[in-house]
């Protein structure tokens, strides 16, 4: 937790540029639906804020992501055309993934200016706390959608994690937090 957050490698940033948004939104939507279904307590913990629209801004990616928890949707949008939203959270992809997986503390990322917030601050706080309690694991959620490809996909994502420094699985007490 004391090491600086990794930045997304430049080749990956460039590779993301030409990706078409509709299939990307389909994939993100499937993962979001899966997470909502397998973690119903996350939506309960959000309460009325589940109906808010959260604009996730991974500053090292070419797109913006709009999360609507009540509808279990997440869609990708071009930076030039940001969609209407109630709150915006900006930071590097590594910051979002580390916070989601319990490797980094959201307040500490705010103190260090690795994350910034605009709009409905209470909604952002509720989302942060609900996600933290849900103990999400992106690798396992994507694997659960991948049928017989789950095992090789886990290996692939593990390799990607080691190569990029991005946190792609849930931290446990056996992981090194330092």
């Amino acid at each position: 937790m004391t090491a600086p957050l990794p930045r997304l490698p430049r080749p990956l940033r460039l590779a993301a540029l030409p990706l078409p948004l509709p299939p990307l939104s389909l994939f993100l939507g499937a993962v979001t639906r899966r997470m909502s279904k397998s973690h119903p307590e996350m939506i309960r913990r959000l309460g009325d804020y589940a109906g808010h629209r959260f604009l996730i801004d991974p500053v090292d990616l070419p797109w913006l992501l709009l999360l609507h928890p009540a509808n279990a949707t997440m869609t990708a949008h071009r930076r030039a055309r940001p969609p209407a939203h109630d709150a915006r959270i900006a930071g590097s992809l590594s910051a979002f993934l580390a916070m989601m997986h319990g490797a980094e503390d959201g307040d500490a990322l705010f103190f260090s200016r690795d994350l910034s917030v605009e709009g409905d601050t209470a909604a952002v706080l509720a989302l942060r706390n609900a996600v933290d309690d849900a103990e999400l694991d992106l690798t396992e959620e994507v694997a659960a959608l991948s049928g017989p490809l789950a095992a090789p996909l886990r290996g692939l994502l593990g390799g990607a994690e080691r190569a990029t420094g991005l946190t792609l699985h849930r931290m446990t007490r056996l992981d090194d937090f330092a």
Partner: protein
Amino acid sequence: MMELVCPAGTPAALRAAVEAGAHAVYCGFADETNARNFPGLNFTPEDMAEAVAFAHARGAKVLVAINTFPRAGAEPLWHRALANAEAAGADAVILADIGLLAHAAERHPLLRRHLSVQAAAANPDAINLYANAFGVRRVVLPRVLTVQEIAAINREIDVETEVFVFGGLCVMAEGRCSLSSYATGKSPNMNGVCSPASHVAYSEEGGELAARLGGFTIHRTPEGEPAPYPTLCKGCFSSDGQTGHIFEDPVSLDATQLIPELARAGASALKIEGRQRSRAYVAQVVRTFRAAVEAQAAGQPMPENMLARLTEGQKATIGAYAKTWR
């Protein structure tokens, strides 16, 4: 060994605290009965029962904070919280209000009672009154005392004392600060929220991060500098051409190196602040302090910790434990 009392704002954070070595975890219900009534945080009665079972199965205690001051006419909410804590199997409740303490002593006599820091009991007479009148067994001391003052108090009381060793600091005696109320109409004492997020707005303005509370700009943080919490006590204000932190700098408490002295002063338990923080914070801080209390028990030197990045202001102080400004 001194008891390590650790924060949990969610069931996941509680599990992280227990797995990292907490002897006891404190937490609260998801309403205004506890002083961390933030969006998305806290426990339902069902969550609490599961959390207590989880902790007990691993040898840890659960202390339930019901440490706000009941509003006239709304006392049943606080009374239900007490009943729910007892039904969940909590090891103790942490209370501040004398009416609620009286109710707990009368209706829940077997439920151990701790006095919250929100009661601001800072001398032997006050502590002995709470002990004699309401059967309080432990007092969480306010963060305004030196180590010598803590030792002097412990010589004149028969109950346990718990002291803060890490986390955010309040500038005033807790339970008596109304700064948040002036800007938002809500306070930690009555509503469980200091500087509620619903009244906070951030914006990037000319390279600075502007933080507003209830419409008042309370600080502007230049690019590259650590951002503080949006509380009035940490605000940076301008007046008569001067700009500065009027109440206190945005720094956090870290009393790791004072643990042996606090033990000699008679403190029974060490408390970590941060129920509003994530399970990542809880895991790392608890693990670090568990190593420290084990070192203290073994007579070894205190380890240097690397927790600055987790703290507000990203720097630490020993606060009032050594009043060097005197």
